[in-house]
C-alpha cells in the first residue's frame, strides 16, 4: 500500500489528480486532529495505538502496511507544516520504545519488519536556501528514525508543479 499525507484543502488536493486506486491511504486535515500529549500510552498502555480517540489514532498500524509514504507539505521554516508535524507526532506507535544504536546514535527499535520509501514534496513561493537545507536534514533524520529505505525530497514553488509526480 501507499500512503499520502498532505495538508491541502480537499479541492486543491483533487486538482493534483492523485491516484484513486484502492491501495492508497490518504491522510488529510479535517481541522480536528488533536496534538500528542507526550504520555507514551502508545507504548506502555495500548501498545501500537495512540490513546487519543480521533481519526489519527492508528497511524502506526497504517504505516506498517505501506511500502511508500508520500508527504505533501507547505515548507514552514524548513519544517513540515503544523498539520503534518501533528500527524508525525501521532505516529510513534509505529516504533517500539526500546533503543538501538545506528551510526553511533540512539534510535528506537522497529515494531514491524517494514521498510518504506519516503518522498516529501515541500511547496512554498519563497522557500529560502537555509530552509531547504533544514528540510533536507529533517527528512533524512526522520528517515533514520522511521526505518525508511530511501528518502527523496523535492521543492515546488507552486502546487501546479506537484501535479506530475504520481507516475
Amino acid at each position: 500500500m501507499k500512503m499520502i499525507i498532505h495538508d491541502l484543502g480537499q479541492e486543491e488536493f483533487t486538482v493534483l489528480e492523485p491516484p484513486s486506486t484502492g491501495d492508497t491511504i490518504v491522510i488529510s486535515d479535517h481541522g480536528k486532529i488533536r496534538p500528542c500529549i507526550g504520555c507514551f500510552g502508545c507504548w506502555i498502555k495500548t501498545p501500537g495505538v495512540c490513546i487519543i480517540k480521533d481519526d489519527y489514532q492508528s497511524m502506526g498500524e497504517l504505516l506498517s502496511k505501506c511500502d511508500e509514504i508520500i508527504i505533501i507539505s507547505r515548507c514552514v521554516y524548513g519544517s513540515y507544516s503544523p498539520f503534518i508535524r501533528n500527524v508525525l507526532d501521532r505516529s510513534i506507535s509505529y516504533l517500539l520504545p526500546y533503543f538501538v544504536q545506528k551510526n553511533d546514535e540512539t534510535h528506537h527499535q522497529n515494531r514491524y519488519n517494514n521498510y518504506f520509501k519516503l518522498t516529501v514534496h515541500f511547496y512554498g513561493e519563497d522557500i529560502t536556501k537555509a530552509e531547504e537545507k533544514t528540510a533536507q536534514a529533517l527528512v533524512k533524520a526522520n528517515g533514520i528514525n522511521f526505518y525508511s529505505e530511501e528518502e527523496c525530497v523535492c521543492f515546488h514553488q507552486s502546487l501546479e508543479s506537484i501535479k506530475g509526480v504520481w507516475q
Partner: protein
Amino acid sequence: MKIAMINGSPKAGKSNTAFLLNSLEALISSGNELTHYHIIKNPPSEEAFSQLCQMDALVLAFPLYIDAIPSHLFRLLVELEEHMKGHKNEIYVYAITNNGFYEGRQNHIAFEILKNWCQRSGLRFGQGLGHGAGEMLASNDKIPLGHGPLKNLGKGMNLLADNINSKSSGELMLVNPNFPRFAWQFAGTHFFWNAEAKKNGLKKRDILRRL
C-alpha cells in the same frame, strides 16, 4: 529586561522542560522581569501575543518531537510570526530543548528550524542549549545543577544564563548527560519502559505486539 519563559512541553504537570526552565530561572531571575507561559495549559490570548511582542527576550523550552518542534508549539510559532510583523524593539530568542535519545546533538535540526523562524519573524536568535537523555532530567531534580549526571547541563546553563543576562549571542551547545550511555540505556529499558508498562498490567510481549 522583560523575559518570557515559554514552556512548550505538552505535559501539563511535571516535565523535563519544566525542570530545565526552573533551573534556568534561578540563574536569570534577579534584575529581570520574568513572565511564564505554559501553552498547553493556557493557549495564548490576543493579549498574551501582544505581551510577547513587547518582550526583550523569549526563552523557548520544549522537547524534541520527531527531530523537530512539537506540533502544538509549532502552530503557536506560526501565529507568533504574524503578530511579530509590527514589533519595533529588538527581541532575542533563546532556546532550551531536551530529547529522549542520549545524544544532545540530535536536537540540531530543531535549532535550525528556530533560526529560520527568527529570520522570518524579525527576531534575533541568541543561543540554544540542547540536552540528551531528557527523560532522566526531571527525575534527577534533587541533584544540584552542575553535579553528577547534571554536570554538563550546569556548565551549559551558566553560559546560557550569562548570555541572556547580557542580552548577547553565543554558540549552540548540544550536550549529553555526564552518565555512560550503556547505563542510561539499561535504566531506560528496565526502570522506565518495562516498569511503566508493568504498572499498566502489560508484559514484554504486549509491548512488542504487532497489529
